[in-house]
C-alpha cells in the first residue's frame, strides 16, 4: 500500500523532482532545528539570563549572540530555533486534526447523502467563505478562554479554518466514487456501510489529501504568524512564536535595529517556501494532468529494399523475408 503511494514520487522527473527535493531540504532543516532545539540553542526560549548574568538588551549580532538579542533580553537565535519547534508542532497538529475531521466528515457526508450532506455542505461552505485569519482569530479567542493560550489551542483554532478544504475534496470524490461499480459490488457481497466507507471508498478518495495537506501547512504557518502578530496566538510565556517576535520588533526596526525582525521573518518566509515547494512537487506528481510525459524518440531501422512489390517487405528488425 505504502509502496503504491510512494510509487509516483519515485518516478518523478524534471521539475517536479527538483521542487520536491528543494522543499524537503528546506523543511528538513527546520525539522532538525525543532527536534534539536534544547541542544543547539544557548538559552531557553524565555530565558533572560545565563548563569545569573542578565542578557543584554538589543545587542547586535555577534559571536556570542549570533542573531543578537531583542528588547525583551532574549537571544534571538534561540527564539528562532525554538520558534521552529512551535511552528512545526502547531502545523502538524492542526493539519492532522483538520485532515482527520475533514476526511471523515467528507466521507460520511458524500456517502450518506440526503439531509446530512446538505447540512454539512452548508456549514462548511459558510466556514470557507469566512476570511481565514478572521476565523482563526475568533476561534483562538474562544479557545484561549477554555484551553489557555497554548500550542494546542492555537492548533485547534487553525484546524477549524482548514476542515472545509478536506471536506470539500473528499466529499466530492466520494459522491462520484459512490456510484462506482466496485461500491455496488461491495454491497453485493454483503458489506455494511461502514465497511464500504472504510475499505472501499477511503483508499480511493484520499489520494489528493496529502497534497492539500502540504499546501495547507504553508498557509497554516502564515496564519499562525498572523495570529501571533496580532497578539491572539500563543502567549509569549507558553512558547516562542515568530509572529509575536516580529510584532515586538516593529518599533525597533523603525529605529534602525533590524535584527530582531529580520531573523524570525526570514524563518517564516523560508519555511513557507519549503512547504509550498513540497506541496507543488507532490501536486505535479500526483496529478497526472499536470505531468507531461516526455516524448521518446523513435528510431526505425531502414528497410533493406524499398523497391516496389509486396515481396520486398521485410521484418521489422531488418532481417528480410528470405525464401
Amino acid at each position: 500500500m505504502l509502496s503504491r503511494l510512494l510509487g509516483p514520487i519515485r518516478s518523478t522527473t524534471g521539475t517536479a523532482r527538483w521542487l520536491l527535493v528543494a522543499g524537503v531540504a528546506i523543511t528538513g532543516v527546520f525539522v532538525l532545528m525543532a527536534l534539536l532545539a534544547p541542544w543547539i540553542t544557548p538559552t531557553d526560549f524565555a530565558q533572560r539570563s545565563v548563569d545569573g548574568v542578565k542578557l543584554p538588551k538589543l545587542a547586535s549580532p555577534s559571536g556570542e549572540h549570533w542573531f543578537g538579542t531583542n528588547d525583551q533580553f532574549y537571544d534571538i537565535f534561540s527564539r528562532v530555533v525554538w520558534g521552529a519547534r512551535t511552528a512545526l508542532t502547531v502545523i502538524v497538529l492542526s493539519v492532522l486534526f483538520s485532515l482527520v475531521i475533514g476526511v471523515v466528515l467528507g466521507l460520511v457526508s458524500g456517502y450518506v447523502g440526503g439531509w446530512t450532506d446538505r447540512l454539512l455542505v452548508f456549514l462548511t461552505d459558510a466556514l470557507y467563505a469566512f476570511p481565514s485569519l478572521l476565523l482563526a482569530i475568533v476561534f483562538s479567542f474562544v479557545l484561549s478562554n477554555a484551553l489557555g493560550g497554548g500550542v494546542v489551542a492555537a492548533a485547534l483554532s487553525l484546524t477549524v479554518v482548514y476542515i472545509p478544504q478536506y471536506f470539500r475534496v473528499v466529499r466530492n470524490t466520494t459522491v462520484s466514487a459512490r456510484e462506482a461499480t466496485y461500491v455496488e459490488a461491495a454491497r453485493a457481497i454483503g458489506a455494511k456501510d461502514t465497511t464500504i466507507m472504510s475499505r472501499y471508498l477511503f483508499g480511493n478518495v484520499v489520494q489528493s489529501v496529502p497534497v492539500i495537506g502540504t499546501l495547507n501547512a504553508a498557509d497554516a504557518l502564515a496564519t499562525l504568524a498572523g495570529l501571533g502578530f496580532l497578539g491572539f496566538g500563543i502567549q509569549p510565556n507558553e512558547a516562542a512564536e515568530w509572529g509575536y517576535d516580529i510584532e515586538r520588533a516593529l518599533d525597533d526596526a523603525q529605529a534602525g535595529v533590524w535584527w530582531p525582525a529580520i531573523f524570525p521573518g526570514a524563518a517564516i518566509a523560508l519555511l513557507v517556501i519549503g512547504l509550498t515547494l513540497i506541496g507543488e512537487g507532490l501536486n505535479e506528481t500526483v496529478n497526472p494532468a499536470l505531468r507531461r510525459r516526455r516524448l521518446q524518440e523513435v528510431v526505425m531501422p531502414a528497410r533493406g529494399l524499398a523497391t516496389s512489390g509486396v515481396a520486398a517487405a521485410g521484418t521489422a528488425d531488418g532481417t528480410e523475408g528470405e525464401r
Partner: protein
Amino acid sequence: MPTKPEATATAVASDSLFDVEELEVHYDLRGGSLARLFGRDTGVVRAVDGVSFQLRRGEVLGLVGESGSGKTTLGRALLGLVRPTSGAVRYHAGQGPVDIATSSNRELRGLRRELQMVFQDPNAALNPSMDIETAVGHPLKIHGIAKGAELRHRVADALERVGLAPAERYMSKYPSDLSGGQKQRAVLARAVILGPELLVADEPISMLDMSVRAKILELMLGLKADLGLTYVYITHDLASAKFFCDRVAIMYLGRIVEIGPTDEIFASPKHPYTKALLAAIPEPDPERMVPRDLPRGEIPDAAKPPMGCHFHPRCPEAVAQCGWESRDLRVLLEEHWTRRDPAAYEREGDLVGSLDKLDTPAKEATLGTGSSAAEVHQLLDRIRGEDPSEPLWSGVEEVVEGPDGVSVRFKAGVDPALRQSDGVEVACIHHPVSVTLEPARGDG
C-alpha cells in the same frame, strides 16, 4: 472443445428458485436543480415496468434487450440491490421463501451469501486500491466465515478454480496489473467463493476482447456444473444468449415481450421485436446477406413510453389497435420530409406549423391552423397516398377539419399482456393467433 452441456436443459428440476410478480422499479428523474428546489414533479423512468417470470433452480435464464430496456435494473432487483417500487421477488431459500422486495437491509446482507453478481465492466468492479487476495477473500471475511490461514487457503482455491493459477502469482497483484479477462476471472472468484445459489451475470463478456469471450463463457459453464449454480445471464448479444441459455426473456422498455425456451425462441421468434433483433445480427457467414426490413427509429425514452404496445412505433407488423398516437404522426411527417427536397419541406413545414405540440402523448393531434386546414388535409391525404400500407393510417379513426386546423383522431389501442402461445409467452396482439382481442391494459 467444450460444447453446450445438453444435460442442463433436461436436468432442470422443475422447482423454482425465484418467482417474480408484477415487479416495477422506477427511478426518479433528476430534473433541473431549479425544478427540484421548487419540488416540482419531474417524472420517473419506468426501468422495470411490470415484469413477472419464474426462475427455475439450475437453469440459465437470459435477459436480452437493447440498451435501456431494464435488464441491469431487473438483475439488481433480484439481488435486492435496488428497491422495487412495487411487486414481489420471492426467493425460495433453503430455509423457506423470502420476499426480497420487502426484506430489511440486514436480512438482505445475510442473503448475499446465496445471491451473487458479476458486472459488465471488469475494470470497474474491483476496488483499485485493494489487492486481489483481499478483494476475493473479502466476502468470507464480511460474513465471518474464515480468517487467517484458512482464508488465504480458500482464496487460493477460488483463484485456481477460475484459472488464475498459480494463485500466489495473482494474490498480491492489484487490479491495474491484470488484463480485462483476468479481472473478470477475479470477479468470478469473488462471486463464487461463498458458494452461492444464484449468479446474476450482467454482460460479463461484452467489454472483453472477442478472443477472451469464449474463455470466460467456458469458465462460467464449468463453474455452473461444479457448483450447481443458477444463472441469470444479461446480454444484448443474442448469439451468446443462444449458446449459453436454457431460456431467454426478451426485454423492451422495462417489460418482457417474449419468454420461453431458447430453442423455441430462436427457431420461431414470435414477437416482432425478437424477429427484428434476430434479423439485425450481422453474421460472419458469407451465405447470409444483408437483411431487409429493419425496424425504424431507436428505443424511445423510458420516461415517456409509447401508448399501447410499447414497440408499435417501430413494429413492421403493427396494426390498427397497437396504440397509435400523436407522436407517431410527428415521426411520419419527419420521415416524409426526409424524402422531399428542401423547397417542398419549406412549403409543407410552414403549412403544418410547429410539430412540438405533437410531443405530448395524446390520442388526438391537431396540425396547421383554421385557414390552412383544407390544405393540410390534402397534404395528409397525399402522404397517405404515397404509402397506403403504412400501419399508422389503419390506426386513424378520422381526420376532421376544424377551426384550429386539421385534427387527427386515433383509434383506441390495446397494450398486449404476456400470453401463452405455442410453448412461449409473447406480448403481441398477433399472438396467440386464436385469441380475440381484449384490452389487457388500457392505454387511455
